[in-house]
């Protein structure tokens, strides 16, 4: 019997990565397939030339600048003259501090005005007529257009696959010890409950049209939870609760940013709250493992810096109107400097790095200025040089980088050498959940989780998971180019970029490709604040998908 069981559990274990590939593949296939070419939403007709201009985006910049979505060839038009954008209520035109002004049906507008079909918009002396998009099609084509969008995908079948995956993991864990262990069954029950509850709420109460992104998130989070259950089952209950909170946080953010214009107004308050959180952290923070980034709330401890990540992306994002009316990044730069300064004071260099890269992403997305990026990087290099000069002990932290095998028993290379040795011990297919030895090393389920994945789940699984996060970055970009607002586009790209960079810092840090900084692996690492924060970022990616806020009829 023993022989049969060990064969059986090994078979399951070997199957897991392939099942993972199937789940990830299906999720992304479904996500990407809905991003095919789009038809124009409406049309503008230049009354002077008769040119038909297709309007394909939800937010369109209008101006003399050749980078504008609608280029006005008139010397009296400003470079960034106006914005034509769509909201649930219809189309709006907004004058973004132009010199010549915008005229709607002959009258100058002072604030955002709603525009209707057949309205005439005058910009820089040129008249444009707003028309339905069918000016681009013959009669025969019109019928075929009607159902091309909003193909509803039943995400339930993917979630069934994920549930099976969770079940197989559970079976493997139950039989991993010398005797049958019931504890993993409880975890499985909780995971199943959270997965399906969030699915039904999303589909039948909030009435969203798709669930693939959430499925991905649940899949990754449950791998993290099951992995930490292999270390100690007790650790996982808080993590499961945090997954629940994370999913709720995800929905709250989605609801909160439903209207990008309102979100724009809230940005200053969010920034203030974020700064207050960091201030509280600095004053009341506790030092754990060298970084003072923990705040104790009774029996709970959490990391405010994780939540500030979400606020950072939120504050950095902007609609086209916002970009065109606020030309400089001064406020955002000040906010970023404050955040990074606070993190340096907390000795949390890894997170400071993440904020810095996200800052570059946001600054570039908003300004498009390569000069800004280069200058920022140069400033950072000089800054880093100063820090190293005045705090030389930081250098010693990185002295073992690329020489970890010469530091197998000191802090410089202790963790990395264990990660490498045990990853190799696991091989491509792994030793089985809970059977690893890396779990005995300090911070294994959080900072070193990639090594645990490689050892217990196999290198294939480890790479699959990090690959998923990287593809999430590609998806965020693909979805964001047709978002309902540039606000979502920027939030989504920069949020995803933040996740990918954080993942790189973590994974490449533990395998000695980059210096070890001790940041978490998104979704997978044990750590409640981190998990909640990641789900918050995921909400931005979700929001960038045009279908997210579609009203189901």
């Amino acid at each position, binding site marked *: 019997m023993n022989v049969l069981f060990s064969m059986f559990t090994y078979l399951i274990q070997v199957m897991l990565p392939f099942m993972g590939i199937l789940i990830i593949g299906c999720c992304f296939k479904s996500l990407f397939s809905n991003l095919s070419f789009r038809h124009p939403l409406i049309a503008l007709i230049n009354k002077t030339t008769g040119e038909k201009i297709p309007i394909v985006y939800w937010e369109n910049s209008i101006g003399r600048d050749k*980078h504008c979505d609608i280029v006005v060839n008139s010397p009296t038009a400003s470079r960034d003259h106006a914005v034509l954008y769509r909201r649930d209520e219809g189309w709006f035109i907004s004058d973004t501090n132009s010199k010549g002004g915008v005229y709607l049906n002959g009258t100058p507008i002072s604030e955002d005005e709603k525009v209707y079909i057949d309205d005439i918009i005058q910009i820089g002396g040129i008249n444009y007529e707003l028309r339905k998009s069918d000016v681009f099609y013959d009669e025969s084509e019109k019928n075929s257009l009607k159902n091309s969008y909003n193909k509803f995908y039943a995400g339930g079948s993917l979630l069934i696959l994920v549930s099976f995956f969770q079940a197989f993991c559970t079976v493997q864990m139950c039989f991993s010890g010398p005797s049958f262990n019931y504890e993993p069954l409880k975890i499985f029950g909780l995971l199943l409950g959270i997965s399906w509850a969030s699915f039904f709420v999303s589909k039948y109460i909030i009435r969203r049209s798709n669930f693939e992104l959430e499925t991905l998130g649940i899949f990754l989070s449950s791998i993290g939870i099951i992995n930490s259950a292999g270390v100690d089952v007790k650790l996982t209950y808080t993590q499961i609760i945090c997954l629940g909170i994370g999913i709720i946080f995800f929905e709250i953010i989605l609801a909160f940013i439903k209207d990008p214009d309102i979100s724009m107004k809230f940005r200053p308050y969010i920034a203030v709250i974020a700064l207050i959180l960091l201030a509280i952290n600095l004053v009341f923070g506790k030092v754990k493992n060298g970084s003072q980034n923990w705040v104790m709330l009774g029996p709970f401890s959490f990391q405010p810096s994780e939540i500030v990540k979400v606020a950072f992306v939120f504050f950095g994002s902007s609609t086209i109107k916002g970009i065109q009316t606020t030309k400089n990044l001064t406020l955002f730069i000040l906010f970023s400097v404050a955040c990074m300064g606070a993190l340096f004071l907390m000795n949390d260099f890894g997170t400071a790095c993440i904020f810095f890269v996200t800052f570059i992403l946001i600054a570039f997305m908003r300004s498009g200025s390569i000069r800004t990026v280069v200058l920022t990087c140069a400033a950072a290099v000089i800054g880093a040089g100063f820090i190293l000069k005045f705090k030389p002990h930081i250098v010693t932290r990185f002295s073992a980088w690329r020489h970890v095998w010469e530091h197998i028993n000191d802090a410089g290379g202790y963790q990395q050498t264990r990660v490498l040795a045990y990853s*190799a011990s696991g091989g491509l*297919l792994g030793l089985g959940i809970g059977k690893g030895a890396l779990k005995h090393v300090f911070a294994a389920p959080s900072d070193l989780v990639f090594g645990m994945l490689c050892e217990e789940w196999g290198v294939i699984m480890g790479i699959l998971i990090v690959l998923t996060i990287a593809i999430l970055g590609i998806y965020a970009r693909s979805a964001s180019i047709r978002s309902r607002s540039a606000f979502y586009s920027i939030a989504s790209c920069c949020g995803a970029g933040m996740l990918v960079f954080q993942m790189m810092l973590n994974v490449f840090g533990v395998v000695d490709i980059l210096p070890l900084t001790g940041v978490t692996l998104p979704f997978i690492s044990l750590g409640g604040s981190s998990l909640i924060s990641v789900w918050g970022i995921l909400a931005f990616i979700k929001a960038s998908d045009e279908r997210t806020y579609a009203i189901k009829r």
Partner: protein
Amino acid sequence: MKNTRFRSIIIYIVVCFFFAGIGFFLFEFIANSRQWAFSPVNRHLSEGNMSGGKILDTNNIILAQTVDGKRVYNEKEDIRRAMLHIVGDGSVLIPTSVQSRYNSELFGYNPVIGFGAPHVFDINQNIKLTLDSEICAKVSKSFKNKKGAALAYNYLTGEVLCMVSLPTYDINNRPTFEESSNDKYEGVYINRAISSSFTPGSIFKIFTAAAGLDLIPDVEKRTFECKKVKIIDGEKVTCMSNHGKINLKDAMSKSCDIVFSDIAIELGREKMKAKMEEYGLNKPEYFDGMQVTSSSYDVMNASKADLGWSGIGQSKDKVSPLYMLKVMGAIANKGIYIEPFAVKSLFTDSSGEYSNNSKNSSKRMFSESTAESLKEMMRYTMKNQYKDSMFGGIQMCAKTGTAEVGEDKLPHGWMVGFSYDKTFPVAFSVVVENGDFGIKSAGPVAADMIKELHGAFKSGKYEKK
């Protein structure tokens, strides 16, 4: 939005960095996973639950095995110390050891399944060595705390019977990293028998004699003259004593430096180099399929006197104990040596012995007549110079060497040889680092080793297997 669309490409840059990094990781994983898995930090091996195959010596004495998930080694400290370099310490520090070289077979490791295969697959194999661990332990003690290496093998079958490298340490009491880099443990992880080369001193005269026999007609009948010191182009070549008129055979037995430096100079750089390379110097050396330290002979930029010195094993000459063992095997065996090997067979617990490792591949090193002449010269040297009593009456052929290493250090002492008696087909090679004269330092080690092996042969200890 067109702008946003264009600018969002920046995220691809981040993703590209990721792909570059993960590609690099995969490359490193493929290249180094074995090293990582067998690093000393891995608790799966040192105290984990990985079962590993046994390592046995030729008499089925267990040198290493896994008991209750722990790797344990032979219970006797002297055997553990003597066998360290061949058995290995379960880490990558001794890459030439059996536990490192055969880790896939012993521990069922490969980079695809890691250590993860269920035990029912029975993929752990046991390894049986050709070595006699008890004799190795005794020979180690003969070194009297000096560094060096000793090798002995059956020149008819290729089985290495004794292989010892010193310094060593007890695997149950490993030196820490700092300790192992200090003087006492210098080069402790190196198996000197195969992975080191030393200045040969007078044992190199065997090669010079071989070249002379091959290229100079009637060299054996020629009379040479030794006046203790010879000035060549203003540089000195010196001998231990004034041998006067002397023939090749006596020059070998009395180890006359002048004679052999004369032969080297007479042959000249090109011919010497060509001959030495024919004998295998400057050629890659292999042991059990792995490349090990090769022996070298370099006279490219040598002056005439240097060429003379090169003929008596000084100058830039370097030989490894393993290579000298092969040379002895070749001389004993009509110029053809049998490739030495230490792993006899691999077998699983359930299916028994299934893979025989003895390759028995052979290669000609000397012509038959040259080999016979060298053999007789070495027998003559043994009889007249060292006396048979040294080996307890066993008829041996041998040559000692004393290699000056300068810097106020004692010279390296060498003794190489083989049995004249075909019923005891053993060749040996011993080097003692900074041990003083070959006969004083390497001699007693060789004598102890040969006497022990002779006893074992005569008692029929190896015949059953």
